[in-house]
């Protein structure tokens, strides 16, 4: 299902979303599923701070990880991102690269950088992950940021649906629909592994 078609080089899945939305856990689950489907996978972890934590967590599960510290790949580390993609392209190139930007990154900036400077990456999908627990609170404070991340999504995944009332999840979905009436929305729980296969099918 996830195998690349002839002529494809590297598929890039960008998992965007605010801090604490569950990006690292989702990337690990996506990576596990791709590996189980015999795909070669690499993960690029970007941390604003100078210390890496999420990359170590994913690497502990046997996934190839490249870490970019001390800035944001949507701005200061765009050069490093392109360099890292270039290094990963060298044999054995992964079939999929899963990229976790910082929680305040704008996916459109990343996509523009990759399309312009990493032209061998010819397939990009953006998953924007929303935290159902905190979405309503965060949207009051950081509405433009979240709105921008939703605007850039190929797929929106509403996470942590197991921790809130169904009505809360539907309010989040309705808000997404008000911004992007046609974008695919998948309700997931990474913790409970709910609907992750459905998300994979939508993404790939």
């Amino acid at each position, binding site marked *: 299902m996830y195998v690349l078609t002839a002529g494809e080089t590297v598929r890039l899945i960008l998992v965007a979303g605010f*801090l604490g939305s569950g990006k690292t856990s989702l990337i690990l689950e996506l990576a596990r599923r791709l590996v189980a489907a015999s795909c070669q996978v690499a993960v690029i972890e970007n941390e*604003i701070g100078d210390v890496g934590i999420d990359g170590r967590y994913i690497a502990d599960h046997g996934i190839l990880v490249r870490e970019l510290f*001390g*800035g944001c790949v949507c*701005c200061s580390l*765009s*050069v490093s991102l392109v360099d890292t993609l270039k290094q990963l392209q060298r044999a054995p190139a992964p079939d999929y690269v899963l990229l976790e930007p910082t929680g305040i990154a704008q996916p459109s900036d990343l996509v523009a950088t990759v399309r312009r400077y990493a032209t*061998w990456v010819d397939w990009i999908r953006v998953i924007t992950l929303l935290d159902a627990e905190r979405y309503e609170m965060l949207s009051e404070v950081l509405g433009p940021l979240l709105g921008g991340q939703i605007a850039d999504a190929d797929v929106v995944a509403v996470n942590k649906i197991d921790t809130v009332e169904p009505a809360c999840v539907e309010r989040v979905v309705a808000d997404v629909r008000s911004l992007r009436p046609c974008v695919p929305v998948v309700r997931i729980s990474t913790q409970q592994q709910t609907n992750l296969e459905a998300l994979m099918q939508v993404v790939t």
Partner: protein
Amino acid sequence: MSASPEVPSGSHQGAHHHDHAPVRHEGPQPVVYALQTDLSLGAAEPQSAEELLGALRELLGGLLAALRDGGCSLIGHVKGMVDADDCGRVFFSVTSFGGTPSIKGSIEGPLARCRLTLNVIVFGIDEPGVEAATRAAMSLHLGPWRPE
């Protein structure tokens, strides 16, 4: 493979206290603080993993309280790692003032030393405030563990 155009230089470089360029939104900007330090028990008896994790929970609770007292309005995340080399490591994260820390991984005791890595991204408080809150929490809420 076709040659790629030159990539522009980054607009800024991060530091230990990161100065992320204003992101493309009009809301509040995050403050980032990172810390990595060895912890030891000095002359005290080695602790079990449960005792170490208890101290970690106390630290996180104390840090969240200190951040709130310092004017922090929103937790992006407080996350980190406790690495005990051959004895294992745990990863932790909390995203709200009243939240229960998520702790993954495993450590086996008894332990006398470990390394703490902490990453704090918050809103509504300045960098010196975050550093002061972190230092205060580490001095008050880590039990017998002391930074080296």
